[in-house]
């Protein structure tokens, strides 16, 4: 199933917008998580964690799902396919991994934000979780940068499935 050029461009625009938006939102999340962990002003700490909860639910989760869906649609609707090229497969796996981890991490974000609404956080409150939020946001940013790089450079290499499909197409044309 191949999309018309107009639909393909629309799907690609949606995918790039969602993916780059996701990357930007994770960068903002990382900045807030660092501010929440290191700031000496308790109001800044509380505000930072309230903002992280807002960002994760209203921006990061929707954009991650949009990136996954538009990516699958774009690849299936073009000659690239979903399982034919290693760079597409790598992007798919990384996006699924990042989205799954994100789903697990909404809970600790909510816990820190919930405590921040109850009272001023001291530097000892949920320290382990707050450090982990910074580490995970940094890791997520790295994964999304790798995804962006793969999407732009499109490194060569076909999967065995893609190679068989290509070969079948060549055989069909020569018959």
């Amino acid at each position, binding site marked *: 199933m191949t999309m018309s050029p107009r639909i393909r461009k629309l799907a690609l625009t949606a995918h790039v917008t969602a993916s780059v938006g996701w990357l930007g939102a994770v960068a903002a999340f990382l900045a807030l998580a660092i501010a929440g962990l290191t700031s000496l002003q*308790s109001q800044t700490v*509380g505000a930072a964690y309230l903002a992280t909860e807002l960002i994760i639910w209203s921006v990061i989760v929707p954009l991650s799902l949009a990136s996954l869906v538009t990516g699958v649609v774009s690849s299936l609707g073009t000659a690239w396919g979903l399982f034919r090229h*290693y760079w597409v497969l*790598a992007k798919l*796996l*990384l996006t699924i*991994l990042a989205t799954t981890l994100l789903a*697990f*991490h909404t*809970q*600790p974000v909510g816990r820190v934000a919930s*405590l921040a*609404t*109850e*009272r*001023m*956080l*001291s530097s*000892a*409150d*949920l*320290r*382990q*979780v707050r450090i*982990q*939020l910074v580490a*995970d946001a940094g*890791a997520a940013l790295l994964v999304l940068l790798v995804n962006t790089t793969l999407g732009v450079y499109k*490194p*060569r*290499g*076909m999967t*065995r499935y893609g*190679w068989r499909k*290509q*070969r079948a197409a*060549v055989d069909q044309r020569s018959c």
Partner: protein
Amino acid sequence: MAELDRYPGTPRWVKVFGIFALVLVLLFVVLHLTGRGLGDHRPGEHAPSGGGPPSPKRGH
């Protein structure tokens, strides 16, 4: 068309990428199994440190 007769194999970047990803996933699993991952916190961790004054209430 001889190059099309045989699968050219997996590129080196895919192997390097796969090993790197595997190490990261294992690291993540180990961190979680040892109780240092996300979602873990020691009992009483979110209570103010012992003996100290309670944190001021928000809005005061």
